[in-house]
């Protein structure tokens, strides 16, 4: 083969392969960016990047409500909401900066009717991206990248249940619900709480200035698109709350400042919810809720949202 022929064929091969590869990725559209593929898109790996990318099109096109928060709200069963079809855009370990980036992606395309925000000191104790996983360049990566290939591989592994103990099926579902306890298997909340009490670890942290700004800006952006904001304080197990009551009260006072009267605030740590926070069956550790616990939260929020809807119609 002559060198000229080699070069010509190389160009044709590379261009052809690129077109095919990119075309395939657009057709599969695993993040729903291009509007192709199945209307139900679970997440197989890297929740941060996936929910960020899904915010560009998949979430705003198929859902009219979102839940934002860290792991505390990630396993909220959003399919049980009645007033709207919700997507759980919560991310394990996320802070408000990262959640704001995901929300902004969604708002750029189509504003949801409702945005439920899980409030907890963890979310605002620091700011900035914790990892490089939320990056605009990942949109180009959706055309073909190592992350995309890894996602395909894990999609196969999970869907075909090749390694069910390490990569179980249906962990992060098409509506963003993250059944993370399938992977972590946290149990015995009493033991977790006792350990937290013994080490006297704080549950309240100083609010980071930038985090406070990010929260404020997020709320402004949501209101500007007529999204109803519903913020709830994630219920803290009673034994821990007893230890840190004053600090938590101070936190609540501070974090509520950027909220407006039209925002709905639900305090699941109020005395009226003592029966909930004292029942450790509602938890899987020192803060994360069990399926039972999340069911109650959703039920309460459903009632509040339904009342709000009815009031708004009157």
């Amino acid at each position, binding site marked *: *083969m*002559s*060198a*000229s*022929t*080699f*070069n010509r*064929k*190389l160009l044709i*091969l*590379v261009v052809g*392969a*690129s077109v095919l*590869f990119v075309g395939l990725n657009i057709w599969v559209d695993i993040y729903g960016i291009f509007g192709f593929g199945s209307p139900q898109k679970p997440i197989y790996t890297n929740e941060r990047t996936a929910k960020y990318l899904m915010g560009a099109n998949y979430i705003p096109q198929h859902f009219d409500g979102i839940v934002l928060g860290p792991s505390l709200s990630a396993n909220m069963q959003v399919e049980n909401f009645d007033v709207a079809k919700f997507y759980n855009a919560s991310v394990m370990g996320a802070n408000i900066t990262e959640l704001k980036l995901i929300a902004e992606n969604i708002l750029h395309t189509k504003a949801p009717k409702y945005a439920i925000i899980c409030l907890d000191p963890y979310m605002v104790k620091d700011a900035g991206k914790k990892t*490089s*996983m939320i*990056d605009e*360049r*990942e949109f*180009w*990566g959706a*055309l*073909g*990248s*190592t*992350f995309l*290939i*890894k996602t395909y591989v894990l999609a196969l592994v999970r869907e075909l249940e090749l390694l069910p103990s390490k990569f179980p099926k249906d962990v992060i579902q098409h509506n963003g619900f993250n059944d993370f306890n399938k992977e972590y298997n946290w149990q015995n909340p009493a033991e977790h709480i006792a350990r937290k009490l013994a080490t006297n670890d704080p549950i309240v942290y100083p609010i980071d200035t930038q985090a406070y700004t990010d929260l404020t800006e997020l709320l402004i952006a949501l209101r500007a698109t007529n999204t109803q904001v519903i913020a709830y304080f994630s219920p803290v197990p009673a034994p821990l709350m007893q230890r840190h009551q004053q600090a938590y009260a101070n936190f609540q006072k501070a974090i509520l400042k950027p909220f407006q009267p039209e925002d709905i605030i639900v305090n699941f740590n109020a005395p009226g919810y003592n029966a909930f926070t004292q029942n450790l069956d509602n938890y899987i550790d020192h803060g994360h809720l069990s399926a039972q616990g999340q069911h109650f939260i959703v039920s309460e929020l459903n009632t509040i949202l339904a009342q709000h809807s009815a009031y708004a119609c009157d």
Partner: protein
Amino acid sequence: MLFNAPEFIFLFLPLVAFIYFKLHQKHLNSAAKWWLLVASFFFYGWWKPIYLILIAGSLVFNFIIGSNLLRNSSISSKKSLAMWGVAANVLLLVFYKYADFLLENINWLAGTKLPLLQFSLPLAISFFTFQQIGYLVDCYKGNAPAYTFKEYMLFVTFFPQLIAGPIVLHNEIMPQFANAANNKPQAENIAKGIYTFVLGLLKKIVIADTFAVIASAGYANASELGFLDAWITSLAYAFQLYFDFSGYTDMAIGVGLLFNIALPINFNSPYKSLDIQDFWRRWHITLGRFLRDYIYIPLGGNKNGEFKTLRNLFLTFLIGGIWHGAGWNFIIWGAMHGFALVVHRTWKKSFNLEMPNFLAWTTTFLYVNFAWVFFRATTFTDAVAVLKAMVGMGSGAFATTALLTDIYAVPFLLLGIVALFAKNTNQLREAFEPNQRLLWQTASLVMIALIFLNSVQSSEFLYFDF
């Protein structure tokens, strides 16, 4: 501009090559060279345009000195002019690279509080300064023709080798530019150039960057390493440095070939070396050549007795260490290599004993690996901490690792280890023969490179710091 940046690969390079050969096709040969010069300055200025003034000034100064050296027939004034010329280049390097190091040490020794200058190091200053020092010495010896200023600028600034070498000699590159046969694109060079470039790119973005994550994490926590993690850290850096730098060189050679310019090779499987002398014939070959021709030989080389030969060897590599960076760690690294070469020479002369290959290889590799710890560690304390951990005196867990946590990185790490002992890029390029198998192989490599290029990861080349 980085070789692995999309704007370089898809925009700058094709545009420069296209217009270059188009101008030649229209017999506008001078314009073609000017175009290449403009492109090279643009390539350099992409990082910080203001430093174009510095490189331009350096070019003008050295060209004037070189021209005067070539015209001057008086030996004493030639010598004086050459000395001043070289001194000026060294001073420039000292000013930008070593001034703060000197000030820090003066402050430490004398208890003063002299303020540091904190100039950012101009990109490639070590490379283009050394290149021009070599040219001045050649002018002094009468070993350089009288280039035009345009030709001289092209020799120094030709963009594939401008930023991080190879350190090219004028008589290596200028005859190639003068050769009219090189004014037309040559399919074989394009094929080899693409092949070499892609191999270099993959070495950098797939292998080097994977090892870099581990090395950076290890060195960032030097005082907490245990035995296993210390070895993982040091080896990760050894591999990162090799694949990063040799990958860059491969890319430079590949790009050069696209313009029908054969740049000298810079690496020849250095980690296969069986002794330290062999290592320096395989690692950063053009630097070793420069040190030999412009420092070791002018010092007297091996012409003035054994003691002076050993002294010259040691000093040459001490200077080589200093060239790499302003810090005691680099001086220690250079001294370690100088010492090793002294020991090697003494051993060879004194004992007619050859080590079994495996023992020779292990000794050489381990010694080089130990020396890299000083090269990489941010402080002397960190270097000592890593070395202590490598001999089991670290504070971390002995036999467990906190560094090898990403299972997805393992295939690339293994690929790196295999690649170290396989044929190197030069050998593959020499054996390059366009055929169906190589076509599919190259296409696959290009596709892998494109996928990696489109993946979120940011990196710079290590030798950009020199």
